[in-house]
């Protein structure tokens, strides 16, 4: 089927508030088609111990599915399986496979919960409740984040003209039994680990290959550079938001202690701590998550380049093999066939690669724009809130 750029969706991170709830409008970017033939969302998720169970809900008008509306429970490992299956499909070598969602990480709130439990004896009841509330909010935030990230992954697949038709994808959405049989067993996981190692070694070699196409040459340079920068930025943004959270936490302790000293009225200070905490988490969501997501996405784009370069290398090797065969006058047809195959593959990769990369650029720009605007607006809103709170508190104190 013709590749129609109009069908590309620009999937962006949804605003915090909208990520939950059934039937909430998707905040996708402007150039999305209104194709409602396959709509996926994660309306619900349960957290049990270590595992998160997502409820993947599909609404479709496509006849390839058995039912028009259905839900299945899925675990994080199922998503990884799907991703790896797609990556390993030869046919998709020319496509940017959306990056796999990162594993749900409850480490940080869990550690805090532990510390809180230990320190319970030394805190006042009020401080303890407050800290516990904060902790629960943090848990919730991590939770929402992971749901969002998994959802986005599926939505990118569903809006990709080629990937949405993938058989594995369909199984993922529909199969109402446990997918674990199809998931990698330990040996295979181990194997993929090695594959990644080999790949990075190859990457070094590949980047040395002479590029024939200007477009790809440019892209390669850009992506390599950008990738390292964005990795750096992501790390820094993480650190920054973490400091911000620490400051917010400190305010909680302060207001609790002030309370027990019963120094005047400090409900405002308490509210202030709430707002500070929320600033930190919003900041994290918009900025840090944006950066993190694109860091992964860029990695996926790089993977595409890698695959193409690999194909180029194969092609060049096949050329050499053909020359050798011609010299030896042996297996010429075989070599010719092989060479043709390689050339075809390479061409296909180059073509789809070009498309994907161009759309990727557009997507990235739009996503950044959206998130930066939202972050700026949230910062302004929070700061104004803070101002109102503080003013009220000051007036109250002065009038006392």
């Amino acid at each position, binding site marked *: 089927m013709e590749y129609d750029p109009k069908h590309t969706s620009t999937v962006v991170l949804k605003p915090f508030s909208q990520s939950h709830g059934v039937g909430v409008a998707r905040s996708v970017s402007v150039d999305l088609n209104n194709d409602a033939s396959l709509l996926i969302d994660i309306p619900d998720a349960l957290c049990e111990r270590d595992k998160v169970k997502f409820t993947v809900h599909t609404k479709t008008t496509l006849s390839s599915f058995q039912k028009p509306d259905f839900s299945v429970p899925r675990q994080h490992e199922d998503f990884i399986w799907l991703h790896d299956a797609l990556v390993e499909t030869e046919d998709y070598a020319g496509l940017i496979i959306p990056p796999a969602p990162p594993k749900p990480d409850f480490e940080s709130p869990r550690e805090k919960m532990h510390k809180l439990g230990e320190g319970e004896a030394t805190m006042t009841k009020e401080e303890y409740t407050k800290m516990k509330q904060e902790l629960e909010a943090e848990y919730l935030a991590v939770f929402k984040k992971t749901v969002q990230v998994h959802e986005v992954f599926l939505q990118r697949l569903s809006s990709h003209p080629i990937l949405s038709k993938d058989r594995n994808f369909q199984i993922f959405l529909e199969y109402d039994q446990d997918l674990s049989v199809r998931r990698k067993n330990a040996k295979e996981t181990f194997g993929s680990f090695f594959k990644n190692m080999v790949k990075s070694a190859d990457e070094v070699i590949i980047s040395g290959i002479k590029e024939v196409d200007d477009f790809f040459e440019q892209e390669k340079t850009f992506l390599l550079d950008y990738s390292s*920068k964005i990795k750096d930025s992501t790390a820094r943004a993480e650190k920054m938001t973490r400091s911000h959270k*620490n*400051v917010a936490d400190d305010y909680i302790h302060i207001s609790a202690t002030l309370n027990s000293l019963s120094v005047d009225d400090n409900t405002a200070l308490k509210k202030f701590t709430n707002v500070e905490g929320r600033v930190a988490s919003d900041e994290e969501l918009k900025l840090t998550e944006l950066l993190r997501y694109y860091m992964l996405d860029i990695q996926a784009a790089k993977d595409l380049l890698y695959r193409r370069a690999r194909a180029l290398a194969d092609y060049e090797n096949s050329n050499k093999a053909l020359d050798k065969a011609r010299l030896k006058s042996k297996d010429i047809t075989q070599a010719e066939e092989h060479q043709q195959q390689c050339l075809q593959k390479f061409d296909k990769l180059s073509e789809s690669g070009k498309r994907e990369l161009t759309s990727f650029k557009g997507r990235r720009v739009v996503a950044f724009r959206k998130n930066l605007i939202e972050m700026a607006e949230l910062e302004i809103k929070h700061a104004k809130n803070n101002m109102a709170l503080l003013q009220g508190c000051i007036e109250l*104190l002065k009038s006392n």
Partner: protein
Amino acid sequence: MAASSRRNPPPLPGAENQDPLSEMADEDSDEGEDIFVGNSNPVAEAFQPDTANGEEPADLFSEAETSTAANSYITNSKSNGVHSDNENDLFAEVSVELSMENPSTTAKSSGAEFTPSLTLSATQPESMEQLEEEKDEDSFDMEVAVTNPEKIGDGMNAYMAYKVSTRTTLPMFRNRTFSVWRRFSDFLGLYEKLSVKHSLNGCIIPPPPEKSVVGMTKVKVGKDDSSSADFVERRRAALERYLQRVVCHPSLLQDPDVREFLERDELPRAVGTHTLSGAGFLKMINRASDAVSKMTIKISDSDAWFDNKLQEVESEELQLRKLHAVVDSLVNHRKELCGNTAVFAKSMAMLGNSEDNTALSRALSQLAEVEDKMETLHQEQAASDFFILAELLADYIRLLGAVRGCFEQRMKTWQRWQEAQSTLQKKREVEAKLLWANKPDKLQQAKEEITEWEGKVTQYERDFDRISVTVRKEFLRFEKEKSNDFKSQIVKYLESLLQSQQRHVKFWEAFLPEAKAIA
């Protein structure tokens, strides 16, 4: 001897405070015999002469004594070197202040109520509360500031000199505005002098800022970085606060040492303030022995007020320490946030550079700039966190220590009294034995000793009463000052937060159109 802890003057004619009298009567459970509960004696004599010569006050509010005593107080107090009974007298100070303030204050005083008269007859403050208010109003006719830290000398003998400027309308000073140069050990010396004179009375003497060998050494060595600048600034601010507290205290202000400190050009070098001196060691030993004795004394105090307050003080000190630790951590975290934001800003700028979409690239660079500005904001906020909150807490932790010291003094006085009583008892027993044994010459000696000790017992008892009065009064004043201090500092802090949020808004609003312009 009734009314050991406070005296209720009869209310002014037409005054509105019958209530405060009665509520105060309730506080003190043992004061059932207080002569003046609900007594509306129309003659407005308000203070009792705790006579300066050791006589028992016969009638607390006798008129005759009052007027003469008033005059004598006024003259006495001017030469205020003696920590006389005057100091502890509840109303002597007020009267002193009134007479001194009245000629000079115009706006500040609760003007209408005072008629400048030496007899002080119709203008007495009635209740404790009003007493406090008035003290507040007329005690601020003086401002001190500590500024311009300068390094004098070089190497290990160098020191920082601070300019102490005073602006006042009080007549006891020679000029209206003047300034002198002082060094840190001068401040410590002042504290030592005041301590020696006043702490035995149960006054709460504001403690000076702490010595810091490390900090000073850095300054001496001439390390010219931000940490030593910070240290000097911190010390300067602390010295200023210290001095302000001293001059706020009505009885300390009268002390000639304070005046000398503020006025005199060259101050003799304070000895005994160096940590490693002989005096320093002596102090340490005293402090250790004090700690031991503190553990063993327990007053069987019929007045539960002191017990309660001491407990309050102790628990408050704990809370403040806790709070101080948290505020410290806040300061540190904010400094961390500062650093991280700066680093992030740089990496954003680099990302913006490598971005090939021009609009996005520009937006990212703008974001980097905004984050840079945020960093400055955070830094300023950290400074205000520290200087406003943390230092306030540190000051009060030290002050609470001084308050505790006050209470301890009172305990010591009590102990002295008890010991005198038991000695007297023993002497009496000796006398009884001698009577039995019939030795007339030794008997005479015994009788003399008994009289001596009886006198001592009376004296010590009176001392104890007096110190109890002072401690109570001081404590109330301290509480009031503390609550005002805290309130004003917190308001200041919140205002600084408010300001920073305003700039926050401004920066992000400037960034928003850039973000919107991405295409």
